[in-house]
């Protein structure tokens, strides 16, 4: 018996393949597919590739979404919802965790505002005995001395936010990393990579004078 290949629109064609891939094809769908395939053998390859792509993508996605199984609701919410709600309310004043982090990043963009440090501009340049210097003053001395000797380039303008913890009084305790760029003369530079077995290997970097690597 000779089948007439039905004329399918591109959408109908895509849906037919998709249903087969999803295991949702009816008997009529299979009849249609066989009829189409009888007039165009390439559709088998198309189906095969669609199935393969869907399978590979599913495996990749399931592996990556498995992390979700490790994320539960905040523990303290389950044990003490009232207290947690108060903390949420405190966070809410900042517009949520994400907004709080964003605000802090913007706030830090220009560096630590001078008014928030212990030392004023005049004090920062002067040398104070370390034993009596505040942490900020000691830090400023380190920066100035390092820059004078060339071992310190600068501090990056945006500290990395580690955590923002709302306190009961409505303030927020932030923990952050100050990023200092330093410079040093060394005899060798190494790079790390992985061999074909995935083991870390260290190899000397070939840097020629004039080829200014970004280090």
């Amino acid at each position, binding site marked *: 018996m000779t089948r007439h290949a039905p004329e399918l629109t591109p*959408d109908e064609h*895509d*849906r037919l*393949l*998709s*249903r087969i*891939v*999803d295991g*949702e094809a009816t008997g009529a769908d299979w009849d249609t597919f066989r009829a189409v395939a009888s007039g165009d053998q390439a559709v088998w390859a*198309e189906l095969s*590739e*669609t199935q393969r*792509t*869907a399978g*590979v*993508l*599913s*495996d*990749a*996605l*399931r*592996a*990556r*979404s498995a*992390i*979700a*199984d*490790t*994320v*539960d*609701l*905040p523990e303290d*919410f*389950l044990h003490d*919802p009232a207290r*947690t*709600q108060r903390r*949420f309310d405190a966070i*809410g004043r900042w517009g*949520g*965790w*994400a907004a709080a*982090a*964003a605000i802090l*990043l*913007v706030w830090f*963009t220009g560096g630590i505002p001078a008014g928030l440090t212990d030392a004023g501009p005049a004090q920062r340049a002067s040398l104070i005995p370390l034993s009596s210097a505040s942490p900020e003053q000691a830090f400023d001395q380190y920066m100035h001395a390092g820059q004078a000797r060339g071992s310190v380039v600068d501090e*990056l*303008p*945006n500290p990395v936010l580690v955590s923002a913890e709302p306190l009961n009084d409505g303030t927020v305790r932030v923990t952050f990393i100050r990023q200092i*760029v330093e410079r040093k003369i060394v005899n060798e530079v190494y*790079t790390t990579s992985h061999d074909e077995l995935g083991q870390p290997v260290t190899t000397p*970097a*070939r*840097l020629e004078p004039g*080829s*200014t*690597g*970004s*280090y």
Partner: protein
Amino acid sequence: MSESTVGTDLRTLSAAMQGDREALQAVWRAHRRWVAVILMAHKPREADVEDLLQAVAVQLCRKIHELREPEAFKPWLRTVALNAARAAGRSTTRRKRHTLRLSRDPVLSAPGTAPREDPRDATDARDEGARLLALARELPESYREPLLMRCLHGMSYRQIGEVLDLPETTIETRIARGRRMLRQAAEADTTRDPRDASSRTHRQARSSS
């Protein structure tokens, strides 16, 4: 797909909305997988899915009691996930603007040989699943989401439609078109960079040996 990975019954959901903590935990566990998929479909590459899931979990605790109808839960949770992913995108953009990046390889970073920005060059992109996932994330949003959700095996067109608030027929069409677009993108990607074709052939040969 089992009930635990797609959804919960309305009674459990209603209990969660009324403050039942165990019910809320059950609701979260039943939905967090597809929430992860929504986040993966929309998050910036640098953002961590686990961090974003925690942000969504916090919002779930804070806001679920404000929902009026259990039927609105899935689209609402999707919106929460979208907002978390977009907020991460905004903060990532701000950080990029001010962050000095140290190159990983001083040889490659010599002038004129800077590594190009290409998702296929990422370490995990050596495997084809990562490459397809990266390509899927570049599909238009309306195709990307249903296609990726469908990849969570067993999530039916109807269930995806409940999350996206769209009819089943629309979902089916978008998944079908999304698959074709992904197939074409993968073919074009392989044609564009023969390294991938050769490495894939190598992998296939290795895995079949």
